[in-house]
């Protein structure tokens, strides 16, 4: 009973003469944790921004939550959550103020905001810091909050752009537990990362090299295909292939 919530066909983004993303195809199913891997500059963030309606693709087709990335961006935005690579909540507001603000922006009622804020704070263990300004919190806590905010309006899909960049292994572990928890409740998670151990946590992954998808499948499938012990080797293999061709 699989159902695709993201369908991408021949998607391309050019900046001037440069192909940031070149004719990529993939599908993501509901409830999946989909890992979107690639080296720095491979085009991951560009794909994610196209799917979130932040930039318009040059050509191709893409449907997100049943809406077209050409022209229906606002419909898409109602159905997705997004956590940017750069921490992008307000440092001069408290935890609870940030959550309330985004709840309000997504058009939730006061009762809904209150109830969901309470649940998210419980879920991510933010209770003791909820009245502190973000500026005073360590990065790990801010990341958890950013994830909470991305979930506040109960989106169908959440896009996480390198969510665990720069945090310690324990916090990363906890973060992935929250990701699974969200996936269990039926939310689709689209995650970019360049930690290869994290790739193993995903249901399926795709590997991007220079704007193109060079590998797609479950971690086990990919490891078998490339006769690799772990994802690190798969990654090196794919990236090196490119060097040979050149």
């Amino acid at each position, binding site marked *: 009973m699989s159902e695709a919530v993201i369908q991408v066909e021949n998607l391309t983004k050019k900046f001037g003469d440069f192909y940031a993303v070149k004719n990529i195809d993939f599908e993501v199913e509901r409830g999946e944790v989909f890992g979107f891997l690639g080296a720095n500059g491979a085009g991951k963030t560009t794909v994610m921004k196209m799917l*979130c*309606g*932040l*930039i*318009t693709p040059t050509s191709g087709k893409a449907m997100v939550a049943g809406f077209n990335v050409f022209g229906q*961006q*606002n*419909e898409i*935005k*109602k159905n*997705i959550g*997004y956590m*940017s690579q*750069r*921490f*992008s*909540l*307000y*440092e*001069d*507001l408290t935890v609870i*103020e940030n959550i*309330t*603000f*985004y709840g*309000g*922006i*997504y*058009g939730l009622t006061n009762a809904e905001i209150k109830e969901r804020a309470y649940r998210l704070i419980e879920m991510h263990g933010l209770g003791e810091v909820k009245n502190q300004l973000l500026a005073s919190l360590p990065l790990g806590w801010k990341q958890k909050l950013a994830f909470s*905010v991305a979930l506040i309006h109960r989106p169908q899909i959440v896009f996480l752009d390198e969510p665990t960049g720069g945090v310690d292994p324990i916090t990363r572990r906890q973060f992935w537990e929250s990701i699974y928890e969200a996936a269990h409740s039926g939310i689709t998670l689209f995650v970019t990362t360049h930690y290869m151990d994290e790739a193993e946590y995903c249901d399926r992954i795709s590997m991007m090299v220079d704007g193109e998808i060079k590998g797609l499948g479950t971690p086990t499938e990919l490891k078998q295909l490339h006769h690799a012990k772990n994802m690190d080797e798969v990654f090196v293999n794919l990236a090196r292939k490119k060097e040979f061709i050149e």
Partner: protein
Amino acid sequence: MRIILFIIRKEFRQIFRNKAMLPIIFIIPMIQLLILSNAATFEIQNINIVVVDDDNTVTSHRLISKLEGSPYFNLQEVLNNRQNGLKKLDKGQTNMVLEIPLYFEKNITNHIPVKLQLSADAIDGVKAGLGSGYIQSIVSEFGNALIQVSGQTTAIGGVRISYSYWYNENLDYKTFMVPGILVLLITMIGSFLSGMNIVREKEIGTIEQLNVTPIKKHQFIIGKLFPFIVIGIFELSFGLALARIIFHTPFIGSFWLIIAFALVYMLVVLGIGLLISTITDTQQQAMFISWFFMVIFILMSGLFTPIENMPLWAQKITLFNPIRYFIEVMRMVMLKGAGFQEIKYHFLIVGGYGVALLSLATWRYRKTT
């Protein structure tokens, strides 16, 4: 509507949490009013003058003592050699040299017209112009007094001009400056703060999180700009109160008419701020561009130099200057008591300007690139 309220609440929280903000709102207006209105005066006093007295008679001494008694002049020296006087002018040791010719007294007694020569250092044109004016009035007063003394008033049949200054009876420059300075104040607050506020969200990346929400352009823009309308109007009222208490600036017209005009004017100012924020990526760029326009707008506003004195092409440019209209309205309403009828075109022009700028800025603002 609810969404807009959420944005407004967030903006106010952030504005008042910013430690630099309260001083900007309260201290800057006071400093501007106190310093600018006292310093920016067109009145000129203490013009340095040297007199070359070739005549050296009782009459010439009387004229010199008149000059000495005038508050406008500072009589530095009385010489008897023309060259020495001009040398002083060359070296910049004096502003003016007045030469009283030989036979000054004799010619006056014989009713022969006499000519005095005034040489002025005109590098500061305003000082030179005003100084000559003052000398002229002192000399002609002196002449009239002489004529009256000799009982020949009728022979001259002179036309006497008597002055009465309307709307600013004491020719108090503060009365003239204060309304204009208040306009500058809300212009700067409105355009700088609003523009920088939006660019700041770009700089720290928070705009991306907003752009990925289904928030509508107009909700974002109204929510962002509304707090600055409140601050601007508050600022203006605060400034008007200060002007009243400290400078006793008259306020003949309606306070509410000024506020109504200020509301319309804020659309222009915020439109400028928003437009600048859409074409810049950092606060530095925004500041630089705002400052560039602000200097032109301020210098061409009629605040420091009368628009009537500008060349025709420059006068035409001032028609595009929103500051000019508000300064006119302030002076008309505060000092002359003008009502809505007298300033309805100002309303129309500034209103149109505001709508045009805001539409342009809204159109330029992109959630998706």
